[in-house]
């Protein structure tokens, strides 16, 4: 079903790239006025979804729409600004020239000076793109995305290759644009970024949406710690302890994924006084996804 209230959507989209299935009958809708974060591990299908929504890729089956039109039509893209992950810039053009040229693609662009200011590029305006650092080039890409005052801003891994300060500055302008009514779709494999920006998180894995919720709710569902230790206790014994999600061997170490570390650690220490090498770490996004996936499979079964 195509969600017509969405500013952009995929409906039942299947896409294969290089003979491998990337998306399988995916439904995804970006709602107006929301900041939506698409997160997931590499290869989950995030960039492919963005490629389909921005008209760069064509679905094998199903339908993509952007403001009610086929995204492959240039006019459909007139209200969208895109910051791509791997796009280059023409070396011999200056920052101001490329921003001015891109602004000219839109019906009511922001003044070039204002775009440069928002992207922190005022001092670099006359520099040729070939002489920019990686982080500066990312800021130019950001400027190209926002210069048309788009109703939908699509940011593919926006803060990759940016230092923390530049990333925070970018987050602030994205937040500001969202507050003024723009819809934002961003992809990231950084949960903190989604947390800082998004109203809604779509967790993606192997071409499917495995969770669709607020960042706080995702964090609560995914919140977990990983305990490692060297012990004579077995994974089978540990797996039945309260709050243990997963237990296994990692080399010579017992590895346990838990919701809350302290009570389980206490039980372990009580059961094996000879236990050594106890370490407790936050679960990675991969662990969280594995947990959410496992939960989903249990529901399905």
């Amino acid at each position, binding site marked *: 079903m195509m969600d017509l209230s969405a500013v952009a959507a995929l409906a039942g989209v299947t896409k294969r*790239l290089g003979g491998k299935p990337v998306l399988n009958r995916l439904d995804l809708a970006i709602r107006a006025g929301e900041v939506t974060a698409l997160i997931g591990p590499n290869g989950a299908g995030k960039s492919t979804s963005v*490629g389909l929504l*921005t*008209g*760069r*890729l064509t679905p094998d089956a199903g339908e993509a729409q952007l*403001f*009610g*039109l086929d995204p492959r039509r*240039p*006019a*459909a*893209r*007139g*209200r*969208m600004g*895109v910051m*791509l992950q*791997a*796009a*280059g*810039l*023409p070396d*011999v*053009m200056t920052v101001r*020239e490329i921003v001015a*040229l*891109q602004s*000219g*693609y*839109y*019906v009511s662009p922001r003044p070039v000076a204002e775009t440069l200011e928002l992207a922190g590029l005022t001092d670099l305006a006359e520099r040729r793109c070939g002489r920019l650092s990686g982080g500066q080039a990312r800021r130019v890409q950001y400027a*190209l995305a926002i210069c*048309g005052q788009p109703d939908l801003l*699509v940011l593919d891994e926006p803060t990759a290759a940016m230092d923390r300060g530049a990333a925070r500055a970018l987050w602030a302008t994205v937040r500001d644009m969202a507050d003024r009514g723009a819809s934002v779709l961003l992809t990231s494999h950084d949960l903190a970024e989604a947390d800082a920006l998004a109203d809604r998180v779509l967790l993606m894995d192997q071409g499917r949406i495995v969770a669709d919720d607020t960042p706080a709710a995702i964090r609560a569902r995914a919140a977990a710690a990983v305990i490692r230790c060297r012990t004579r206790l077995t994974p089978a014994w540990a797996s039945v302890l309260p709050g243990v999600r997963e237990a296994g061997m990692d080399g010579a170490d017992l590895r346990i994924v838990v919701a809350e570390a302290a009570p389980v650690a206490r039980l372990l220490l009580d059961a094996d006084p000879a236990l050594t090498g106890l370490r407790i770490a936050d679960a990675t996004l991969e662990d969280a996804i594995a947990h959410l996936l496992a939960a989903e499979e249990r529901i399905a079964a």
Partner: protein
Amino acid sequence: MTALALPTGVWRRECLAEVKRSWRLPQFLVPTVLTPAAFYALFTLALNKSPSPAAAAMTLAGYGVFAATGPALFGFGAGVAMEREQGLIELKRVSPMPAGAYVAAKLAAAIFTTAMAVVLIDLLALVAGVRIPVANWAALTALHLFATLPFALIGFGLGMRLGGKAAVAAANALYLGSAVLGGLWIPPEMLPGWMRTAGELVPSFHLAQIARWIVGAPSVGSPGSHAAIVLGMTAAAGAWAWAGWRRSPA
């Protein structure tokens, strides 16, 4: 949905920006502009101590076509392939810019470069004593500039299918091949029979024959049939290039 229009002037601005970019790449511009003039000066003017104006006019016809193939094949073939690898085309494709404006801008830059090369050759021809009516000069120049188009579309098709290095190699092969087989350097009458036959398959041969007819040099076939063949080849190259654009993800 409202206001899904495209702004006016996109095509013009894109063309100007692309011409400016070419101008700022002297390492590409200078050899592309100078090579055909240098070849013309060497083979027509210097090697024939005092060439007859008629001979100079006949070779002018072919070298002008040669001058168009360089910017077209390298600017489009190698240029598009490299821009694809650098993610420059991706940037354009997700923007509201229509695809046609990208092609038009690249074509404008190639014609701009061709024009400079053709002017140089024309000046050398004047020095060599070539005198033809102004209308014929105009027609010859128009033809030489038009010659960019079929080769640009062939280059575009290559650029959308090959990687940067392979596209440079393919552009080189076509650059030299179309010059030799098309009789742009050595008149086709002096080529072996099989090469003359193969020459019929490249647009440069037909373009050079039309150019010869314009300057009043001996030519084979009728200009009308050559023109029809060139237009057919141009349309086929255009369809091939468009298919490449459509199927390529970036």
